[in-house]
């Protein structure tokens, strides 16, 4: 949204409040990183920062999809479950079935990572489409449909793998989660490419404008002749795509897929998106913000662990900081309007 705010004031030189409003989450992130770096210099090593980036990539991919959903004033609670299901399907394909589920390393036969990735993404797309269909066709609120989906996909994942993990993939598969290109972890590269593409789609294409319009005022969008149902359905399909993709990357990263993977991801991911300045009421938000929001949560979790803060206190700090980050963003924006 910040970038939408076209500003005649732009020419009036540097506007500190405008800057703060636009980059509030980024400022917050930088301060947070500075604090961690001061408290524990090892936080700031390149190894650790790459770790953070890699950890963030998985939920970050989900957050990109979630940005589309939230821009239409929707929500998707099913992503964690869908991810688990898609991951198991990918794993089963990669292992050529369920019988060899624990065979380790290259001995594992199977159908290759290409088919496995396709399988995960297909499951994601189908899961997203079914939910989008229920939302637009039966007029059931996204919260309810995806709450149902959360239960259904988890059940499906557990049933599919009979409750157990599937693990040990070949090197090519594992490369997608563990490999590096010039020191940069592969998941990070995937995340960055996905973020850039999503940014282009949202900012410069017809489709992107329509997503904002539907979120901003669905009735107005309908009366303007947009196919609102189609657009709403499509964002859940996009979300499903990202759930499938991150399922694949996560499986490669862990060298294993489990039915309990992704539990609780929905809230982390929604929090990342909202911290990045996207409004839960739709129509306002950017991919840039979402990336910052995802990094903020990733840094927070990593930093507190590195500082070896007791896990109970970690939870308290994380909760407080999430609220503060959004409060700071709100405050910065209101300051700007005052200025």
């Amino acid at each position, binding site marked *: 949204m910040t970038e939408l705010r076209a500003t005649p004031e732009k020419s009036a030189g540097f506007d500190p409040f405008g800057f703060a409003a636009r980059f509030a989450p980024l400022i917050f992130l930088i301060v947070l990183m500075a604090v961690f770096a001061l408290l524990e210099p090892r936080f700031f090593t390149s190894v650790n920062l790459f770790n953070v980036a890699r950890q963030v990539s998985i939920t970050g991919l989900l957050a990109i999809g979630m940005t589309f959903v939230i821009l239409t004033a929707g929500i998707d609670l099913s992503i964690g479950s869908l991810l688990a299901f898609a991951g198991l399907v990918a794993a089963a394909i990669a292992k050529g079935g369920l019988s060899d589920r624990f065979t380790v390393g290259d001995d594992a036969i199977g159908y290759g990572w290409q088919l496995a990735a396709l399988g995960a993404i297909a499951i994601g797309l189908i899961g997203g489409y079914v939910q989008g269909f229920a939302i637009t066709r039966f007029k059931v609120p996204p919260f309810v449909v995806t709450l149902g989906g959360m239960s259904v996909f988890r059940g499906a994942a557990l049933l599919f793998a009979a409750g157990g993990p599937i693990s040990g993939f070949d090197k090519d598969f594992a490369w997608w989660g563990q490999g590096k290109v010039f020191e940069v972890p592969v998941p990070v590269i995937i995340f960055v490419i996905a973020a850039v593409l999503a940014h282009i789609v949202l900012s410069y294409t017809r489709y992107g*404008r*329509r997503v904002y*319009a539907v979120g901003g*005022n669905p009735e107005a969008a309908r*009366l303007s002749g947009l196919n609102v149902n189609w657009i709403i359905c499509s964002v859940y399909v996009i979300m499903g795509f990202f759930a499938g993709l991150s399922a694949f990357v996560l499986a490669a990263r862990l060298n294993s897929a489990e039915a309990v993977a992704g539990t609780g991801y929905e809230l982390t991911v929604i929090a990342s998106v909202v911290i990045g300045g996207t409004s839960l009421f739709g129509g306002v938000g950017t991919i840039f913000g979402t990336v910052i929001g995802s990094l903020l949560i990733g840094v927070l979790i990593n930093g507190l662990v590195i500082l070896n803060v007791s896990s109970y206190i970690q939870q308290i700090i994380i909760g407080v900081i999430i609220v503060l980050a959004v409060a700071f963003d709100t405050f910065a924006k209101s300051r700007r309007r005052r200025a």
Partner: protein
Amino acid sequence: MDTAPPLLRMSGISKSFPGVKALDDVSFTVAAGEVHALLGENGAGKSTLLKILAGAQSANAGTIEIDGKAVVLANPHEAQQRGIVTIYQEFTLAPNMSIADNVFIGREPGSRLFINRAELESATSALTRRLGLDRSVRTLVRDLSVAEQQLVEIARALSMQSKLIVMDEPTSALSRAEVEKLFRLVRTLKSEGISTIFVTHRLEEVFEICDNYTVLRDGRNAGAGAVAETSIEGIIRLMVGRELSGLLARRSAGLVGPVALAVEDLVRLRTPTSPHAIELRNVSFKVRSGEILGLAGLVGAGRTETARAIFGADPFDSGRILVDGEPVSIRTPQEAIRHGIGLVPEDRKQQALFLALAIRTNLSITVLDRISNALSFVSADKELGLVDEYRRKLNIRMAGPDQLVGNLSGGNQQKVVLARWLALGPRVLIVDEPTRGIDVGAKVEVHNLLFEMANAGIAVIAISSELPEILAISDRIVTMREGVVTGEIRRDDADQEKLMTMMTLSVGEAA
């Protein structure tokens, strides 16, 4: 050519909502290149008919023919494909998107995939300039005033390829200057052979711009014909089905009481919630109990800002407000109400109504304390009595007190809002565009209500963009321009021309 079918023929259209038959066997014909007025009281079914034409609602019965061919308009997209473009009565913009994005939403220039921003913006600014909308096309719609938003909606309609433009009360939020610009555009369209359907409650406008008219009453055809062959009275008779009762006698100005509200040097800088708001500079005026003070000004004169500042809806930077001679501190609407000040806001849907709640809840919200007992239980009898009282007094058309306000016609919604404040019985009542979208009959009723209130000793501040209305109801008129008071005049000394001059004076000239 005489045998050619009309551009549009709707016949036998019926439409029911729960408890209401909005349209009953209505026929409606529009020829190519004409400007056709669709008239009727509030709730007559005008908007419903036009929404059916726009594909936004479906009829229960009836046929639509375009150029003699029967068509089915299942959704707005199909209607637009056939060249029917609609400006709706309600707000249909995305508030967080820019003017340019809103104007071309769904039809952006560019390649199949990507938008050409430069072209989008230049095309938009060409349109907005023609309409006299003096804003960067990148301004967010939510930062615009109601009038400006209306202009954006018009710009959007004009940007579409059309044979027929439907305008449902486009002028209700506009002042004279913009109305004239709009009419100039309508005439240009007409010369290009494009037809316009025009809905308004300002009947003079019909005689200015329209060729033919159709009147609906209670969801049925009440009459149609050429504008040249009728008069305002004739149309009113068709709309109302009876003679209108005249205006009430007003209490003479001599009986006006002491100063009830005084505003002194009110200053509000470019402000907290709206970066584009009008700055108020040293606004001062007084209003006495029993008096109706008219606030006149062009769009952007700062009248709404003044009203909101007095009412505590927005903060102001300096200045004093005195109630009954005592300076008071008002920071919230709650405090304003405690000091006996009420405000009927400009935008009823966004700022006044609970659309998904019942009429009774909407009406009683300001007087809950009065109609509930010590245990804070709301008395159903008192509440229903209240609804009944105002349904009669204001002739509100409703299926029952439990009907949702969102299902009332625009005019009846406005009456519910007025009733809410009348029920409270404040000492000072500010009404901001109180008759916007209200039909002629109801307008008289609202005016009479304002008189009654003044007669009962209430100080009334009336803001209106219609000069005839200001002249009809005020005892005294204060004019504003760009946040500055430019003059004050007694009604008896005022006429439209004088007011117009005062409204366009700049600060220096005013002094």
